[in-house]
């Protein structure tokens, strides 16, 4: 009897264990989505404000002929990522002031379909169970990019006639901006997306190197321009000012800085990533000169000028280092890093940060390369093949390219988030000095898409602080446009091979690079590294890229 009870109990325990583990293995894709109820104060305020503005703008006839709000109150389902910038305060995009205003102004009822992260979005795409439209960065997340997604029947390729008829404002923009249009065109002549586009002529450089200029002054140094000066500055921070980790660059930021050419140009490589010189593709990390870049980084590492734990450092640690004075130099976005650091520490007297240009070989040289976003950087909006009424979806997405829509997506609601001063929108105190203590990005995330991207024409970023404006100007002032790889489309027959090669080679490169920097591999082995890259199919990868560039240039 006793035995039987034990075995039954055991069976029950094992069964429940099975179920537990079954649940556990699924939990990765649906992590912690329970958000607290939205803050009613903020939302309530906006509702009335939104209603007011809609009253003013009712029946706005756009130049090309669609009038919003549209007739017949259509419904549209929209797949979106749930963003941390608002997910702690709101459950759904449609609860945001932006979602509400958008529904009122366009006349569409939005059904938001939220996923939590890129992997969840990839799974949704793989399941084939897609909403009418979704916003995402397929160009980075889908094998063979958007053109392949059209071929695979996931998103709709849109003919010029379709766009002319259903999205006249978007079409007008594309007509006027030939290079953007070219980046969105498949080889069959179809447009793949309602893209996140910029005002003509807007700068695309939003990342920078930044250093503590007050410390430089203390050391009697000018802001560094060359690798040697940069090294001397870090050395000074460490030895004379006792700074623990002069250069704080977590692996992601380090790779970003190398890809943007911030640290590679003194050594004759424009970028670690691919770039083009006179129509020829070059992979920076496959160049013999890249050895010198790694040798320099290895020197910084060995001398303790760089964080020994750069491979595990997270963003919170980075922020703490930069704010507390444990570190004096880093690289990253002008908005969320340079801006945030300066704003957070604005009351601290002896704290100052300055952007510097990408490092160059000789003092006074003009940088050849720097940060420059792709024309088609996304997130873009796509009409899926599941969409029952693509024309209605296109009319909805067209809104972001009308004057009204541009204002809403860029600056939010007039009288609430911005006022027009001298013909220019100026953000209100609600945004810049929020009474509830929200950061500018958090407030903008409730009212606009400007902080992220989406189906609209973005105004040039207007940074608040003089340091940010300076950073913006100096990083845009490079020859990157000449050398930057355009958005090429990998040929259909090559796309599988390309995806496999690129992913394996990139993993090998990333790992080996870390070993060189940390001195686990001697730089004498650099030739072996190059030989391995070649054995892994490096030259084939180059060939595929070159073909794609040739096709692009002839398009």
């Amino acid at each position, binding site marked *: 009897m006793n035995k039987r009870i*034990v075995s039954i109990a055991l069976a029950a325990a094992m069964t429940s264990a099975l179920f537990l583990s079954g649940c556990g293995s699924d939990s990765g894709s649906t992590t912690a989505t329970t958000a607290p109820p939205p803050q009613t104060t903020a939302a309530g305020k906006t509702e009335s404000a939104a209603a007011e503005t809609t009253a003013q703008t009712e029946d706005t006839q756009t130049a090309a002929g669609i009038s919003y709000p549209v007739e017949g109150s259509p419904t549209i389902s929209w797949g979106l990522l749930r963003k941390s910038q608002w997910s702690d305060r709101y459950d759904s995009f449609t609860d945001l002031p932006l979602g509400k205003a958008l529904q009122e102004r366009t006349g569409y009822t939005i059904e938001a379909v939220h996923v939590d992260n890129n992997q969840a979005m990839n799974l949704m795409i793989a399941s084939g169970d897609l909403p009418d439209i979704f916003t995402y960065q397929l160009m980075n997340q889908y094998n063979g990019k958007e053109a392949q997604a059209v071929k695979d029947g996931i998103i709709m390729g849109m003919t010029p006639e379709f766009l002319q008829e259903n999205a006249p404002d978007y079409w007008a923009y594309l007509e006027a901006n030939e290079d953007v249009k070219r980046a969105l065109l498949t080889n069959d002549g179809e447009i793949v997306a309602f893209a996140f586009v910029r005002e003509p002529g807007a700068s695309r450089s939003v990342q920078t190197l930044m250093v503590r200029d007050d410390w430089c002054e203390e050391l009697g140094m000018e802001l560094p321009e060359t690798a040697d000066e940069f090294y001397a500055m870090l050395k000074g921070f460490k030895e004379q000012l006792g700074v623990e980790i002069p250069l704080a660059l977590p692996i992601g930021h380090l790779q970003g800085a190398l890809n943007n050419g911030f640290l590679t140009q003194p050594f004759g490589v424009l970028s670690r990533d691919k770039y083009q010189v006179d129509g020829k593709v070059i992979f920076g990390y496959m160049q013999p000169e890249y050895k010198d870049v790694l040798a320099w980084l290895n020197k910084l590492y060995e001398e303790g000028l760089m964080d020994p*734990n750069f491979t595990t450092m997270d963003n919170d640690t980075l922020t703490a280092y930069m704010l507390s004075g444990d570190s004096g130099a880093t690289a990253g976005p002008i908005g969320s890093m340079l801006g945030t650091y300066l704003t957070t520490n604005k009351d601290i007297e002896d704290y100052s940060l300055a952007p510097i240009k990408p490092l160059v070989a000789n003092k006074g040289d003009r940088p050849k390369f720097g940060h420059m976003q792709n024309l088609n950087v996304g997130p873009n909006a796509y009409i899926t093949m599941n969409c029952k009424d693509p024309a209605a979806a296109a009319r909805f997405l067209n809104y972001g390219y009308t004057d009204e829509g541009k204002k809403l997506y860029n600056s939010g609601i007039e009288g609430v988030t911005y006022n027009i001063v001298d013909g220019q929108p100026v953000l209100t105190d609600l945004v810049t000095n929020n009474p509830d203590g929200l950061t500018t990005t958090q407030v903008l995330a409730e009212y606009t898409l400007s902080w992220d991207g989406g189906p609209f024409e973005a105004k040039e970023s207007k940074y608040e602080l003089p340091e940010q404006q300076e950073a913006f100007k100096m990083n845009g002032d490079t020859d990157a446009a000449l050398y930057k790889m355009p958005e090429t489309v990998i040929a259909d027959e090559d796309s599988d091979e390309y995806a496999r090669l690129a992913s394996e080679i990139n993993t090998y490169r990333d790992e080996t690079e870390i070993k060189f920097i940390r001195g686990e591999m001697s730089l004498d082995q650099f030739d072996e590294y190059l030989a391995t890259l070649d054995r892994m199919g490096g030259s084939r990868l180059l060939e595929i890229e070159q073909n794609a560039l040739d096709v692009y240039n002839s398009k």
Partner: protein
Amino acid sequence: MKKGPFLPKLKKDLRRNRGAYLMFLPVLVYYLIFCYKPMYGVIIAFKNFVPTKGILASPWAANHGLVHFISFFKSVYFGRLIRNTLVISITSLFVTFPLPIVFALLLNEVRSRHFKGVVQTCSYLPHFISTVVVCSMVTLFVNEKGFITHLLVQLGIAEEGFSLLTNKDFFVPIYVLSGLWQTLGWSAIIYVAALSGVDQELYDAARIDGANRLQQTIHVTIPAIMMTIIMMFILRLGSVMSVGSEKILLLYNEAIYETADVISTYVFRKGLVDSSWSYSAAIGLFNSTINLILVVSANRISRKLAGMSLW
């Protein structure tokens, strides 16, 4: 068991053990839905899977559908992935398999029921902490300012100022020992249960023959639970090639891929990050095939050597 036609026998058995079958039902449903039905999807390993076309309509892959397998075997990571998977898994097996048995034996010797209860409850508490939380704790303990790092620095084993997770030599110990902490008590439950079923008369007989405590353990207790041990061992062998991805994904970083990247994490990166569905399905299928071979051969060997087996 009497021989006879299967169905009538089953019917009779169903009637007799209604309760047990009822309890078995959810397990059956679980396996049908989550283990058998998805097997049909394995076909995508031989195809170039396109989500919108579905599993059947996607085109077959090149080389008689084997191209994904071939490219995995040719991949530079093939050797490393197999090696890491085996190293992590076999080390885990040698540490986390015998210790729960020892632990159960020790518990069995404890005479104070109260003390035994407290120890057992404490030992299986970690099992109920989510892997994500365990990994964040581990990460904190072994980062450059963590107490374990501090301890190892004092002992001269680790270098000061470095997170242990950036050193490829520390990954396997960290993984295995944290796993031991997590599973020790929980894995011991089954042995504790088996031990409570051992006939007390056997001990009395052994004592009369003059066996001391240790001899009783060796000659009575262990043979009594041998069947359970072998069963658990065969089950464990079946998963030697499958090291779970969750914990490694939460702990590893690019600097230690060399010892930390295993087949399941590679499948995860290929499938969910790079969206190479078919390729990652092929690797997963290859992995499962090896697991199947292992479990079948372990069963055979055990039947030959010990006369005991799962089937």
